[in-house]
């Protein structure tokens, strides 16, 4: 590549992405990585050090800081199953699993989210290309992230929005969101009565297409109510800076 071509490439990158440049050089690889929002180690009974991708395996087998009793359906006759590790969780929990004690839902969701994140990071591939800008969590994020990130509690209202073809983006559903940067990997989006804290948990290629993706979670909560949810998503962004949902993970 000549100097002129380098110059033009740099200009193009600046124009498209403004804050970061895409490295598409052959041979460059973006490793799987995680941030301080990946807190699995702090939820384990044993002191486990997670430095390399391979270390994540140890977190799957390690004991949680406490057991959580779950039921697989909500009939009174349902058998109570204690879970004490991610390995337990993967083998015994189903899509109908709830905690035996309703008030333990939040702590259980945190454990389940971290287990799922551990599994995803463990099996993610390094990426050949990346179109992720450095400061993608900012006040404009709701206008570029897909509508699935929106915080909705009413099933009826969510179904109505899902049928509305004009609602492409998060901000099309949650309008007038205010923004507060908590750290480089954590931002708060809020309106009157509710908030979403978006955590960047990790980066890697989660769908084996060679392009770097992100793993984020949304902590959804309301003011003066007990509703709380933790959702986990993988998202990808292309060279046109278009974000799309790869998958929302159910615990």
């Amino acid at each position, binding site marked *: 590549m000549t100097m002129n071509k380098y110059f033009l490439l740099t200009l193009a990158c600046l124009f498209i992405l403004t804050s970061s440049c895409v490295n598409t050089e052959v041979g460059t690889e973006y490793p799987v990585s995680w941030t301080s929002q990946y*807190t699995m180690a*702090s*939820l384990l009974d044993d002191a486990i050090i997670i430095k390399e991708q391979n270390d994540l395996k140890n977190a799957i087998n390690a004991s949680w*800081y*406490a057991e*959580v009793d779950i039921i697989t359906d*909500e009939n009174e006759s349902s058998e109570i199953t204690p879970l004490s590790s991610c390995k337990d969780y993967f083998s015994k929990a189903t899509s109908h699993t*709830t905690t035996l*004690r*309703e*008030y*333990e*839902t*939040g*702590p259980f*969701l*945190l454990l389940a989210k971290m287990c799922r994140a551990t599994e995803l990071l463990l099996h993610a591939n390094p990426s050949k290309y990346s179109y992720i800008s450095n400061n993608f969590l900012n006040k404009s994020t709701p206008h570029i992230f897909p509508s699935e990130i929106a915080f*909705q*509690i*009413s*099933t*009826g*209202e*969510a179904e*109505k929005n899902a049928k509305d073809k004009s609602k492409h983006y998060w901000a099309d559903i949650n309008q007038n969101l205010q923004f507060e940067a908590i750290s480089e990997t954590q931002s708060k989006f809020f309106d*009157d*009565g*509710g908030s979403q804290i978006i955590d960047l948990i990790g980066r890697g290629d989660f769908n084996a297409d060679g392009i770097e993706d992100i793993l984020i979670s949304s*902590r959804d*909560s*309301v*003011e*003066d*109510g*007990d*509703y*709380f*949810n933790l959702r986990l998503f993988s998202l990808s962004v292309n060279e046109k800076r278009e974000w799309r949902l790869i998958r929302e993970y*159910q615990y």
Partner: protein
Amino acid sequence: MTTITEKNILRKKLEKYEGKVSHMYRDSKGYITVGVGHLLKSVYEAQILRFEDSNNNPATNSEIKLEFETIQKLPADLLASAYKKHATLTLPDTEIKRLTEIHINSFEKELEIIYPDFRLYPTQVRLALFDLIFNLGMTKLQSNWPIFNSAIKAKNWQKAADNSKRKSPVSAARNKYVKDLLEQVAKP
């Protein structure tokens, strides 16, 4: 006015959803909490409660401050039992009950603001609305549930029942409880 029977039902429901924890812990949002989901926004808010030490003697302000700061340093959103080993002070049952009564009365006032005819609604509808406001808070219930709120104000209980479902992780049992209450009135 909420009857004693209704208040007993509501208190048990709140204990089921929030737990009843006599020591300080950090909730899912990271706030210091005690009793039945009673939020302590500051050390002062903890100090005005009747905390007791392990000998059932009233805790001093400095003991309460120390406990608050100790719990604050622990990670948020753990099981309440994980905070117990770090806690030395407890709130007596009578105090927890008093705080829960205050919450119920406060929610009732908010429901009367959202639904001016709230006092005239059948018991089942009132209990259903209490469950929703416990869960969603006043602002979200008022602003994000237009179909449901229109149905309630039109006293179309069946339509309200059909639009009362909350998304996961609200349990199917909790959604069914609200739907059944509204349907009991819709189909007497």
